[in-house]
């Protein structure tokens, strides 16, 4: 039951993009197309869960017992960078079409604040291993959801009359503001 609570909080109530403002760069940059958003969302989900499985044990079995907590930032980001490299390598070999369509954005997953934030949250919220995995899946799917929603909205915006001072990026942020308000409605969902 508590796992379900963690999932729903991460997915909807405390949505990583719309409520916590993370992963915005890719949110604005990779939502021009629904297919692109889904691809990015799935890639991020994969890396996030992988990152959790590596960083959680690293922290609790190596960093903490050795009193090296101050290396957390350094170690976690290097792990994520290494994982992204591995994913890139693997994709290049086994799914070259997907690899080329993602282009530079694949490497940019390393700087996706959401992934690093999740690894930090696992520790600061004191989750055990299973809870951390559930949390990271929830967050990543929440990211995918937000991306998908904005991609859909962008299609509509393209064919709507927008006041000139809001054209371009400003209207995207206004749309995000409205999405955020909608997501605030989930607040009372779990006690």
């Amino acid at each position, binding site marked *: 039951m508590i796992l379900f609570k963690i999932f729903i909080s991460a997915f909807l109530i405390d949505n990583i993009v*719309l409520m916590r403002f993370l992963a915005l760069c890719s949110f604005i940059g990779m939502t021009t197309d629904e297919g692109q958003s889904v691809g990015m969302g799935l890639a991020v989900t994969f890396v996030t869960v992988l990152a959790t499985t590596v960083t959680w044990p690293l922290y609790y079995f190596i960093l903490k017992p050795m009193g090296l907590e101050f290396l957390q*930032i350094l170690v976690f980001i290097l792990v994520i960078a290494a994982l992204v490299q591995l994913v890139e390598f693997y994709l290049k070999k086994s799914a070259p079409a997907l690899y080329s369509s993602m282009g530079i954005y694949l490497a940019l997953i390393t700087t996706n604040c959401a992934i690093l934030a999740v690894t930090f949250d696992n520790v600061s919220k004191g989750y055990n291993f299973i809870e951390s995995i559930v949390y990271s899946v929830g967050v990543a799917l929440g990211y995918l959801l937000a991306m998908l929603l904005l991609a859909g909205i962008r299609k509509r915006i393209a064919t709507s009359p927008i006041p000139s001072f809001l054209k371009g990026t400003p209207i995207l942020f206004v749309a995000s503001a409205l999405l955020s308000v909608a997501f605030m409605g989930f607040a009372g969902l779990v006690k």
Partner: protein
Amino acid sequence: MKRYIKIFTNGLVLENPLLMLMIGLCSALAVTTAVANGLGMGLAMTFVLLMSEVVISAFRKLIPDSIRIPVFIIIIAAFTTVIDYVLKAYFPDLSKAMGVFIPLIVVNCIIMGRVEGFSYKRPVMDVIPDAIGMGIGYTWVLVGISALRELLGNGTIFNIQIMPQSYKPILFFVLSPGGFFVFALFISLNIFLKSRLKNVEEERK
């Protein structure tokens, strides 16, 4: 000297990292609920940016191209950790208010972008004005957004009551949607400023 000034002012408006280049957004919206936080974040980020740019520029001949990204990450992460602990020790309230966003400075695209695109190829004297310019460009936007959000959403600036007592704070502004909304306004303001600047330059020619 003129060159340094040009590099410095670049980051303030024309290539303002947040409003024009659209990078480093995450921390910008999340911590701007109060001016103290916005200012603190801006200065912290500027510190990491400056130190990273200087070190990487100074050592650029000693960083092999093929492993440059991991080396950048190590250096940026190190300075981020430094500012994290310094804040924890000397400004604990600020540190708690900004929470996970201080460690997140390490993935702030501004730093990574600047380091890769600028300081890896330029001498130290060039990167110092760049870092300070970009840093201030980032900070002024953060302070501006926080001022608006704190003023309208809490009636205060720096926790000093500015609005009259009868003003009922509009909570919207300090909550997530408000962040997005205020940011939209700032972007459009900057687009407007930029087009004005371009007009002025063209008239001069």
